[in-house]
């Protein structure tokens, strides 16, 4: 069940977040949006395990990518950000949970904040890699342009929302109805499947905006990072 994964590459995304590429022999494959369980083991047998969303699209390459925020005093994210280097091994188990997953079969409205963009990026990458035409839009909240994960990869499907500082001419403030309502005013045929991901506080806020704008509650899927 547990597989040994070898770190092959580390890429800085923002001052606080980096992407870790792992080679996972016999990886079963995943759906965009799914997560895995990762564990580190100390010499005395002590283990620490955490959940991480998969950032890469399913591509059959035998590699997956994770993007980790550096949490102050974080036991697992701290190891990744200060000790880890290519060649190191960790253990992973998954993919897990089929609920927060998007196979690419229906229009999707993605709303994330901070590292909550990670599983949503897997969906966007999948959409691009497969050349899908089903509508896909993303609203992503970050403190500032410099803290927007995957900034250089985001395209016309994405509207960033900056909460602390923004480029000249771009408003600063939290996500509001004004961001969500226009997308729901002209829904695609069949309506949106909404995927919300981030801290619990953000998930509560964003899901309330969606409900207020008319999105059916049973078509909102939420991944809370705790």
């Amino acid at each position: 069940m547990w597989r040994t994964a070898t770190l092959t590459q580390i890429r800085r995304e923002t001052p606080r977040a980096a992407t870790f590429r792992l080679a996972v022999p016999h990886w079963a494959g995943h759906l965009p949006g799914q997560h895995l369980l990762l564990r580190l083991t100390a010499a005395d047998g002590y283990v620490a395990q955490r959940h991480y969303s998969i950032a890469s699209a399913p591509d059959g390459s035998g590699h997956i990518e994770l993007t980790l925020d550096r949490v102050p005093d974080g036991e697992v994210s701290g190891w990744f950000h200060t000790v880890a280097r290519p060649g190191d091994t960790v253990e992973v188990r998954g993919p897990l949970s089929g609920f927060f997953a998007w196979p690419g079969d229906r229009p999707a409205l993605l709303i994330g904040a901070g590292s909550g963009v990670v599983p949503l990026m897997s969906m966007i990458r999948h959409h691009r890699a497969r050349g899908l035409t089903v509508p896909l839009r993303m609203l992503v909240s970050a403190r500032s342009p410099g803290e927007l994960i995957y900034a250089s990869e985001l395209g016309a499907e994405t509207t960033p929302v900056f909460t602390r500082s923004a480029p000249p001419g771009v408003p600063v403030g939290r996500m509001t109805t004004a961001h969500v309502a226009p997308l729901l005013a002209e829904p695609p045929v069949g309506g949106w499947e909404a995927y919300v991901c981030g801290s619990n506080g953000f998930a509560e806020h964003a899901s309330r905006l969606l409900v207020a704008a008319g999105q059916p509650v049973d078509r909102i899927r939420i991944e809370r990072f705790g």
Partner: protein
Amino acid sequence: MNVTRGFTGRPRVHNPGLPPGQYDARDDWPVLSAEVTPDLAPADWSFRIDGLVERPHTWDWDAAHALPASAYDGDIHCVTGWSKFGVRFGGVSLDAFFHVVRPHGSATHAVARSHTGYTANLPLADLTGGRAWIVWEYDGAPLPPEHGGPARLVVPHLYFWKSAKWIAGITLLDHDEPGFWERNGYHARGNPWEEQRYAGD
């Protein structure tokens, strides 16, 4: 054992109350529901037990509160890894509800359902004998909506996803029928002491 180079981890604490693979979340109480927190007033809440019982019954807020009060004082364990010690939930023991509906001898399993549509399956034996509650108080105050208020199921000896928030009812069956997470790869029973996190554990 697959030792991770350079990983030492936090100072080891010996805590016999901590099931394998869990850590003490202390004052944190993470919220992990996959659904929108419903806007459910006590006046709109109801709780029904049906299926393999002699007398199916529905309680409203006042009728449920008229049953003998019972509290759980102890620990809870979430499958994502945190445990929380010394929590206090106030409500009514499920035994008091079962006393009214009288389960059939043929009932072996239960499906708990939420007002949102969420479900969780449990062996009936895990819901009886003073081990499960319907609760509306946390630490002496009304249970907050994001933690399942106005009322939730609490089955503290199993991983907490079994303790359905916004509890609407329990249906007794003569077989096991997977619930929301159980259909998504999670373990049918979820005993934290045996680390039954995912199907096959």
